[in-house]
């Protein structure tokens, strides 16, 4: 700011046509690159959505056109709803993702509270132990995990999937939440303690104060669980327990030559996540940029 005042000639020099031309160009180029890449990012997705509403002939003869009264067809969606377990798969995904998320946030916030609030022997050791899972993927223990699930009778159950996702989601949740909880003012908690609040009350008091962090973690844990293929494939492949990701994968394998059905099931699988994303995208990206996930 100081330099600005000291150096006025520098600025008057720039007030000429060349400067504006250069300014215009330097502002155009970022827009060009960004919009070109945006097109690359969105066109493949749109191609699927748009063509899912057309009849088979139009999909092949005019793939780049929007459906019109002549080419409009819902035949693909009819096939999906009559031939696949779409509703069942969707419900399974909702249950697995919802229940896992609830427990990750509950159990994770409890542990994060203990680690950020109390200086006890072994605190840093427990923190270190819990953070191993941030970098080492749980997938690598699949051979033993499957045996464990067989012994516990949890193969082909949603419970089996849920406990694995809880274990998978905890490390990062605890790591981030304990950082947020450290920022809650000490005076607030001590005042409550003087008023005779128990430690459990203090935890319940701190929880709403880290709500933004809970929201961000919620979104970021939810997406990988909803999208996971590996554990549904390995631990719960039965048609009764298949999640939407596995269901779509299997359905597409069978109906690979029925283009209407393929496009429709892809669209149906995308739309819920896309809607959720469009609602929460600003919040989501803002939460990373706020340093929530450093």
């Amino acid at each position, binding site marked *: 700011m100081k*330099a600005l005042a000291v150096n006025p000639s520098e600025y008057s020099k720039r007030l000429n046509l060349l400067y504006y031309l250069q300014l215009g160009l*330097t502002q155009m180029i*970022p*827009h060009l*690159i*960004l*919009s070109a890449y*945006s097109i690359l*990012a969105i066109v*493949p997705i749109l191609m*699927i959505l748009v063509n899912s509403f057309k009849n088979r002939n139009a*999909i*092949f003869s005019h*793939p*780049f056109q929007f459906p019109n009264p002549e080419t409009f067809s819902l035949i693909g969606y009819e096939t999906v709803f009559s031939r696949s377990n779409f509703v069942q798969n969707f419900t399974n995904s909702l249950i697995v993702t919802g229940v896992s998320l609830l427990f990750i946030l509950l159990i994770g916030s*409890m*542990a994060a509270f*203990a680690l950020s609030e*109390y*200086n*006890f022997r072994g605190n840093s050791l427990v923190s270190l*132990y819990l953070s*191993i*899972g941030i*970098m*080492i*993927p*749980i997938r*690598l*223990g*699949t*051979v*033993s*995990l499957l*045996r464990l699930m067989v012994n516990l009778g949890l193969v082909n159950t949603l419970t089996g999937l849920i*406990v*694995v996702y*809880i*274990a998978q989601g*905890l490390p990062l949740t605890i790591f981030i939440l304990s950082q947020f909880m450290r920022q809650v003012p*000490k005076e607030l908690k001590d005042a409550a303690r003087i008023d005779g609040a128990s*430690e*459990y009350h203090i935890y319940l008091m701190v929880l709403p104060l880290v709500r933004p962090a809970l929201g961000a973690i919620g979104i970021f844990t939810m997406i990988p669980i909803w*999208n996971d*293929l590996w554990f549904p494939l390995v631990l719960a492949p039965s048609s009764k327990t298949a999640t939407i*990701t596995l269901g*779509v994968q299997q359905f597409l394998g069978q109906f690979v030559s029925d283009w209407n059905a*393929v496009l429709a099931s*892809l669209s149906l699988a*995308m739309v819920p*996540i*896309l809607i959720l994303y469009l609602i929460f*995208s*600003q919040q989501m*990206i803002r939460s*990373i*940029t706020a*340093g929530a*996930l*450093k």
Partner: protein
Amino acid sequence: MTKRPIHRRFPIHIVVFLSPAVLIYSLFMIYPLLDSLRLSFFTTLPDNSETFAGFQNYILLFTDSNYAPRFWGALKNNVIFFLVHMLVQNPIGLLLASLLASGGRGRKFYRTILFMPTVLSVVIIGFIWNLILSPLWGVTEGLLKLVGLERLFQPWLGIESTALVTISLISVWQFVGIPMVLFYAALIGIPEELIEAARVDGASGWHIFWHIKFPLILPTVGIVGILTFVGNFNAFDLIYTIKGALAGPNFATDIMGTLFYRTFFGQQLQLGNPTMGATVAAMMFLIILSGVLAYMVFWQRRVQTVEM
């Protein structure tokens, strides 16, 4: 900060708060990881009992005529898969992030669109690109025709020499949003005064980027690098979706994840082998662990000295 314990007994509420997380995490994450490492030193006898075998599984994996070509092939392909991400995904992510961070109108809009593929399931992305690149549909060929390049079109996913790079690029297309957002967060965190001072001193945008901004976001460069490494050496879904467990054509797209799945569960003529599966998983574990350790020892330490 701390609550001084009045009694010398370990405060019970700490146990209550910690035990659910520690129990679930230990039982369903740490125990399977350790037990799987243990299994890699055992072999299954015909009567289904397991016996200690030392390093026999590893020797088989590295030298046996059935296992070794698949293992070394998958490892090589996985390195290529990773290199494509490092050389294409992360630089593009950095470019897009710096364009977004430089401000201008429509920033939110671009951000939303560019991150969109990242939130979709890999299964969906795999099928979408399978359809779009399919010669049956002819969409890609049609687009190339518009610019007069239709001669270049080939069924890239089906050709041995191009399948792996094509799949890597599909993965890059999907996940470029992650480095983009992380770099973006780091770039907008740089104090404006620093940039302003350099600009007043007459530094060009190019110069400011490489000499001021880039050194300041080095910690994020490291994080993006290690996240890419762990994600890539643990990948499976995309190749399984597009190519199946056999990772064709002729294992050209086979990576560690698909090799692990095939070895564990078996394939067409070969029976599944849990202890050999555990051995492949142990190798993935070693690779990922050494990547993480290298990052912590070399990168984090170096970056800290640079910052000082």
